[in-house]
């Protein structure tokens, strides 16, 4: 088994799952097993929903909000905090790319379950920034 299973095997499968618009995908290959399920209301949660087979689904679907550009993370003032409830599609922060402000939005209401980045941190494409519980 490769040292980095996520990189080598899960990512391409997650991509295929996401691109294919599938709702459920299970792959078994020797001792390697992974299952993807799309949460009913998820907009972009393919990666976040990946978990080992057999583990129960979380009570509430969680969307990972990923960076769609490369740049520097900039929080708003006041900054969004973990546990904060969002009443709609809110701007959570922005990613600055070559002086251009690329808003990061919550894509609907929910609760900020996790903040993965800090203000001023460089982020790459596809990097998880926030987890929003719906």
């Amino acid at each position, binding site marked *: 088994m490769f040292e980095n299973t996520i990189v*080598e095997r899960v990512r391409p499968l997650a*991509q295929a799952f996401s691109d294919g618009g599938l709702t459920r995908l299970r792959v078994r290959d020797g001792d390697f097993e992974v299952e993807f399920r799309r949460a009913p209301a998820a907009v972009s949660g393919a990666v976040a929903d990946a978990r080992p087979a057999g583990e129960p689904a979380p009570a509430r679907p969680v969307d990972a909000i990923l960076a769609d550009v*490369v740049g520097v993370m900039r929080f708003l003032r006041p900054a969004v905090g973990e546990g904060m409830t969002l009443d709609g599609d809110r701007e959570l922060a922005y990613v600055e*790319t070559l002086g251009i402000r690329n808003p990061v939005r919550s894509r609907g209401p929910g609760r900020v379950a996790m903040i993965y980045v800090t203000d001023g941190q460089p982020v*790459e*494409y*596809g990097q998880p920034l926030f987890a929003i519980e719906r």
Partner: protein
Amino acid sequence: MFRKVLIANRGEIALRINRACHELGVATVAIFSEADRGSLHVRHADEAFCVGAGPVASSYLNIANIISTGLICGADAIHPGYGFLAENARFAEIARDHGLTFIGPEPSVIAAMGDKATARRIMDESGVPTTPGSGILANPAEAAAFAAQIGYPVLLKATAGGGGKGMRAVESEAELAAAFATATAEAEASFKDGRLYAEKLIRSPRHIEVQVLGDQYGDVVHLGERDCSVQKPSHQKLIEETPAAALDPAVRDRLHDIAVTAARAVKYTNAGTLEFLVDGPNVYFMEMNTRIQVEHPVTEMVYGVDLVKEQIRIAAGERLGFTQSDLQPHGCAIEVRVNAEDPDNNFAPAAGTLGRVEFPGGPGVRVDTHVYSGTVVPPFYDSLLAKIIVTGRTRESAIMRMERALAETHIDGVKTTVEFCREIMRDERFARAGVGVDWLPNYLANRVPTPA
């Protein structure tokens, strides 16, 4: 010298650049798409940033994300490799505007040479011979008028072109309208520039190109020629070698002289290649590639010069460390492109996961590759998996060595060009040297595919 170089490419050439940087003591930043996360070029770089999804428009052509990566990482230069943004003058300009040195020629030179019709005009004015050709053709009627004037067959070519895209041979006026439409569409799709020009089609010329290096102080040298006549029906190169065998020494000298004259005429800096059609004693300038080329290793092997390091040194403002008389070639080198393609099915590209991968070794063998057992070959990019380069004191010994090296090569999981190229190494006509560009297409047309 630079402190940190951003490598704006993928695959074997990204790894090649990474090696050159590390040997110069320069730190590297790799970029990659989501489809290339497991690639060796990512693993060997000092830092790596994902810049987009698999499709090239999202990642390897995403100028904003690439430049942004350079700024975030504190890179002071960008090496574009070949393909993607390597001949994009706008990219070179944007990089410079953000304080990143573009490792290549001046943007204005990239633009002039990148527009094939402009390049031909400049070469004409510098006394470099070109095939009889038209300017930009507005419509099939203009193409027909040009063809009537110089006679069929003619070759329609995309002015933004390269790699055989947007190129069509037209044998008669009856074929012209349809060929014009497909070439325009192909050029539009490949380069976002559908403009075409036409040239007199030289039947079965040899494709011979000359490598040049120019520094920022006006010194220009050539590093001999490469014979790239073994091309697929799509005009893509498959096997390259240096020196060009069975070539009149006077023609060889003339090619070298023309290349240096032309490079001086456009005040060329960095590494570049001038491509020529050679038809007996006649040589015609075709185009200039303002970048490192896929087949650069054969030149490196016989001249003992690291072209990628030279590119970096030149961009950093260093002088060429040698003169023309210092550059003496030794022996012969051949390169085979190992592509994920099916030679029995018109070289259709294949994607998939590689099984067992074994590359050759031993004396006189070099392998440039980014793949290994288990590599996922994504469907988004060109199908090059590896380049196998061999040297020999003579062409004959190099061919024997390549045959041996290909016999040691195993790639499971996708169809490749390995066995087919091995077959070519055993071919009696190839052994006699001097084939033209129509040789391989004719060979394929008369070939019985190997049983699966």
